[in-house]
Structure formats: C-alpha cells, structure tokens
C-alpha cells in the first residue's frame, strides 16, 4: 500500500520532466515561462549574494596576516590585521548541533501528541501556540534569555559542575551562567516550532489505511506510531530537523545577547566561551573599520557555505531515505 502511493507520487514528480511541459496554448506557455523565470531568478539571487560576499571579502583576506581557516584570533582592524574563523566555526557548529539534539526529540514529541494523542480541540489550539513561538522576534528571545533564563541557568550550571564536574563537558565557571549551553537551550526553543510544525504536517499525511491496518492487527497506539507513522515520516522529520539546524546556524541577535565570549576553543560547555559567526558579525560590525567589515563579510561567506552544505546533506538524506520506505 505505502509503496504504491509513493511510487505514484514519484512518477508524478519525475514524470514532469519527460512529458511535454506545455499544451501550446497561451495560458500554458505564459505559466511555463513565469515558472522558469522564477527558478532562474532564484539562482541569480543566490549567485549575486555569493559574488557580493566574495568581492567584498577578498581585499580583507589579502591583508590578513594570519591563516583565515585555522587561526583563532579576531583582530582585523589592528595595524597588522590578523583574523581567522576557527573559533567562530567551532562555536557555531557546537551550539547549533546541541540545540538540534535538545529540540528534535521534544519537537517530534509535540508533533506526535498533536497528531495522535490530544483531543481535537486541544490539538488545534496547541498547534497554534507552537507556531506562535516562531513568530516571536529573536531579540525578544535574547531579552528573555538575558533577563530571565540566564540567572536560572546559573544554578543548573552549578549543579552540573558540582555533581558531574568530572565529565569533560562540564567543570568550569561562568558568571551568571552565560555559556554555550545556555545559548544552545535558547536556540533549541527557537527552532522548536519549525521542526514541530513540519513533523506534524508529515504525520497528518500518514495514510489512514496504514494506521487502520495496524490497529486491525491489534497494535497499541505506540506500536502504530512505531510501525506505521515514524517510518513513513522519517524523511520529513529529517528535513524538518535540517531546516531547524539552518535557522540555528544563522541565528544572530539572541545568541549575541546570551552568549559570553572568551578566547579559544573549548568543549567545556558551561564555561564562558565560544562565539558564533552571526553573533560576531552583530557584535562587531557597527564599530568595524574597512578591513574589519571585509573580514566579517568573509566570515559570512563561510557561514553561507556551511549552510549550503547542511542543506545539501539534508537533501541527500531525504532522497536516500525515500527509497527505503
């Protein structure tokens, strides 16, 4: 059953290329042109962004006296500009991946609850509230994080340090609990609605026949979810998580406000430390001189490439998973 519907879907999706695009009538031709035009326009915009970033970054990169990829210092406006992205890349990836780890299980739990467990009335209300989280501006998350959440995290950090300080991740002290873990938790809350609402939509797509068949075999509700829902929704959940990761990678102002910086790379997630591409740009762009701006744009280019790679990976995963279902 499942494979049937999917195959039909696949032929429909792929068949487009083989079939004639137009019947030759005016409306069809116009639609074809405008659709193709939109596609080309999008490519042009992406290319323009890339060209802009490269053109602005090159002069600064030429002036850089340190290795741009492996250096950890960021001092582009000094008489002898030295800057590199290693610390930024590390902080960006670490905080985003931690946010993804924290957010995905919760988001999928919410989506499952809304789709299968909660009463109808509650489900629509709850779905609305989760989507509302996405509408909160990120500076509000930053303010909330700084004024309310950070002090609370201080006691969490103390607890973890006191009881699990021997784990290499913990140990270390940060004033007011402003650490990369705090930033990751704030990021997790911010990417929750994206992952949850896409997963929810995917779960609503599960063919009713599959669910009914499993129920008819005597499966419990959890078994239905495990056997019929999760396998069907796997590619959807992966792409939802990747979209969330994309948002976490690029998130700027909330991280800039919540994260406290310190020099160097460290896996100790409760210490002050780390910095992210986006937060660094937000923090230093206003005061930056010419070389500083170029350096920041160069770091933006790296973020652009990382996001591109993440999206391509996500597509690859989704495409591969499709075959197995």
């Amino acid at each position, binding site marked *: 059953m499942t494979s049937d519907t999917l195959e039909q879907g696949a032929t429909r999706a792929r068949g487009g290329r083989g079939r004639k695009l137009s019947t030759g009538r005016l409306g069809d031709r116009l639609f074809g042109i405008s659709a193709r035009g939109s596609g080309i326009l999008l490519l042009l915009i992406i290319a323009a962004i890339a060209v802009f970033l490269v053109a602005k970054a090159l002069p600064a990169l030429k002036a850089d006296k340190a290795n741009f990829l492996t250096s950890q210092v960021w001092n582009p*406006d000094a008489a002898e500009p030295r800057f590199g992205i290693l610390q930024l890349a590390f902080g960006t990836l670490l905080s985003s991946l931690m946010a993804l780890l924290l957010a995905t299980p919760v988001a999928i739990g919410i989506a499952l609850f809304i789709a299968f467990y909660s009463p109808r009335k509650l489900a629509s209300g709850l779905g609305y509230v989760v989507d509302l989280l996405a509408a909160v501006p990120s500076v509000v998350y930053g303010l909330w994080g700084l004024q309310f959440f950070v002090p609370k995290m201080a006691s969490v950090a103390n607890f973890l340090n006191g009881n699990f300080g021997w784990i290499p991740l913990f140990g270390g002290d940060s004033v007011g609990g402003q650490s990369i873990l705090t930033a990751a938790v704030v990021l997790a809350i911010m990417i929750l609605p994206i992952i949850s609402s896409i997963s929810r939509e995917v779960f609503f797509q599960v063919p009713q026949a599959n669910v009914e068949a499993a129920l008819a075999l005597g499966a419990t509700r959890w078994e239905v979810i495990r056997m019929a829902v999760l396998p069907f929704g796997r590619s959807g959940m992966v792409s939802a998580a990747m979209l969330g990761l994309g948002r976490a990678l690029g998130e700027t102002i909330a991280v800039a406000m919540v994260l406290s910086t310190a*020099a160097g790379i460290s896996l100790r997630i409760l210490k002050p430390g780390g910095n992210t591409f986006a937060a660094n740009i937000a923090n230093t762009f206003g005061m930056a001189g010419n070389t500083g701006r170029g350096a920041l744009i160069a770091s933006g280019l790296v973020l652009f490439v990382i996001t591109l790679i993440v999206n391509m990976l996500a597509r690859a995963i989704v495409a591969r998973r499709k075959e197995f279902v």
Partner: protein
Amino acid sequence: MIGTRLAALGGVALVGALSLTACGSDDNGGGSGKPAASGDCVKSTVNAAGSSAQANAMSEWIKGYQQSCAGANVNYNASGSGAGVQAFTGGQVAFAGSDSALKPEEHGPADARCKTGKALDLPMVGGPIAIIYNLKGVDNLQLTPATIAGIFAGKIKTWNDPALAKDNSGVKLPATPIKPLHRSDDSGTTDNLTKFLLATAPDAWKFPGGKTFPAAAGGQGLKGSDGVSTGIKQGDGTIGYAELSYATNGKLQTAKVQNGAGDFSEVSSDAASKAIAGAQVSGQGNDLALTLDYKAKDGYPVVLVTYEIACEKGLPKEQADFVKSFLTYTSSQQGQSILSGLGYAPLPDSILTKVQAAVKGLS
C-alpha cells in the same frame, strides 16, 4: 560605486533645486550666539548616525532643540562609530557621531565627501567610564591603574591579592576569585579603557589599545554595557567597566581610581570634566581631535570623549544650516547642561570655547 555617485548627484540636484526655490527665506542662519533661537531655526529633517555611547545625549538634545524649533528633527541612528563614519563618508548622513576622531586613513575619504571643505572632529560630550564591581562586604574599593591593568590582564586573581591590599589599607578583603568581565562587542568604551591602561600602566598592560578587548587578556566577554552591568549584578567577585549611567541605573558599586596626582577619585560627571580639561588638541585648525591626558592631575581619569564629525564646508545649503544650528545648540551652555543628569560629562570651558568657535565657522 557608480550607483552611489549617481545617487549623490541626484541628491545634490534635488537639494539645490529645493534651496533655490526656498531662497531668501532661510538666509538668516548667521550664527547668533543664542542656541536654536527662533531666528536660526531650520525646519527640516537631517539624518545622522554613529556612536551608541552618545545616543542618550543625542535624544535629549533632539528633544531640547525641538522645543525652540518645532518641526526640526534629527534621525540619529546609533549604529556604532565605524558604521557612522562609513555612512558619513558615503554621503548618507549629514553628520556622524564617533567615539574616536577620524584616523589618518579615514580623513582623506571623509574630506572628499565634504567636497569644498574638510571633515572636522568636534568633541561634543565626555563621559566617565566607571569601574564597576560586586564584592560582598567591600564598599569603598580604591584602585591604582596598575592594579586595574593587573586584574583585566588576568594577573591578579583573588580579591585579597597584595596589590589590592596595598591600594586599600585597613580594608578586610575576602579571598574570593576575581572574575573580570569585558565587552564582547567592539566599543569606544573598551577603546578608551585600554588606552588609559596603556598610558598609565604600561608594565602591567602588555596588550594593544583598541575597540576590541584583547582576547589574550582572558576574562569573560558580554554584549554591551548593559550585558556587562547585568553580569556584574549576577556574580559575586566580578569586576568590569561601563559608562557611569549604567552603574547608576543598576545601583552598582563603583571603584575610586587613582589619578595623576596620586589621589583616589570618585567617579562623577564633574570629576570627569576636570580630567578632560587636561586634553590637548591634536587636530589642525578647526579640527579638534583630542589627545586625552589619562594622567590628569585633577579629577577622575578614566574618561571618553565622543565627537560629532561634520563638514566644515561643502554640504548642500539647507543641510549645512541645519547642522550648524543644531551643533550650535548642543555646544551651548544650555545644551551641555543637560548632560550631567544623564551620566555624561559636560565639556570643560577650555575645550567648549574652541568647539563653539569651530561650529561658528561651519558653512
């Protein structure tokens, strides 16, 4: 490049046309000593951008200016000094606020923007940088510049360190570890603090001065003066730096700092004004770039001065009149007098008279 040039040409043409049609009615801007008196009031809107350190002063000035000149407005975008200078050079704003005077490499492009004149650095508001701390049981902390440098460089690690004990004889200091906090964003405050440390404690402060706090010095970076003062409040044993208003609003403890005469001076607007009086003008002509005397004999020595960067000549007439009239107000006694209530330091008379003369020369 071509685009901006075309836009600039268009702007010049437009403003030229406008000022032609308005000819004769607004020709009485001839710098009467009175600030923004109804006579030299230019009812238009001008865009400005730059330093966030002077944003509060600017918004008070705009309010004050509007009281005598209804219909006039300044859109001040506190985007940061670097962005302000960039916008000024690019011709997007009529004047810019900056925490540091134009650097030699910035002066050329800025002069080019002003076409017939030069770009001037006009000091407009000063301010003390408070050394703020949070330490239970210690209220009257006194610090020498060398101790401050040692703390921020990570050399002095506990509050009962001998250096601190020497500065505070008779005070019982706890063995709490010191947690130094600094700005994670680039800032004029950091620039002036590090320059102060470089000038007064070169043995203890081995890092360059600049807008970015040197990462090698260690410590914990937080965003904005707001972030630093919030951090101070949250942790026992912390020390950091911020403009005075943040210390006052957050009810934080401030340390007394030793000045050039060897006295420990309490931070205040007046004490900062006294220290700024020792500054030397390093710019030429009406360009009033200052070299601050961080070893000033009098007053509180950790200070910053923020500038307005404006064209001496060469702006379209209406804009030029507005800038002149507005800066006449900000540099007047009346304009300066509202500053101390906001945690800024009014310019001392010795410098203020030079600024007023320079503003008079704008056209």
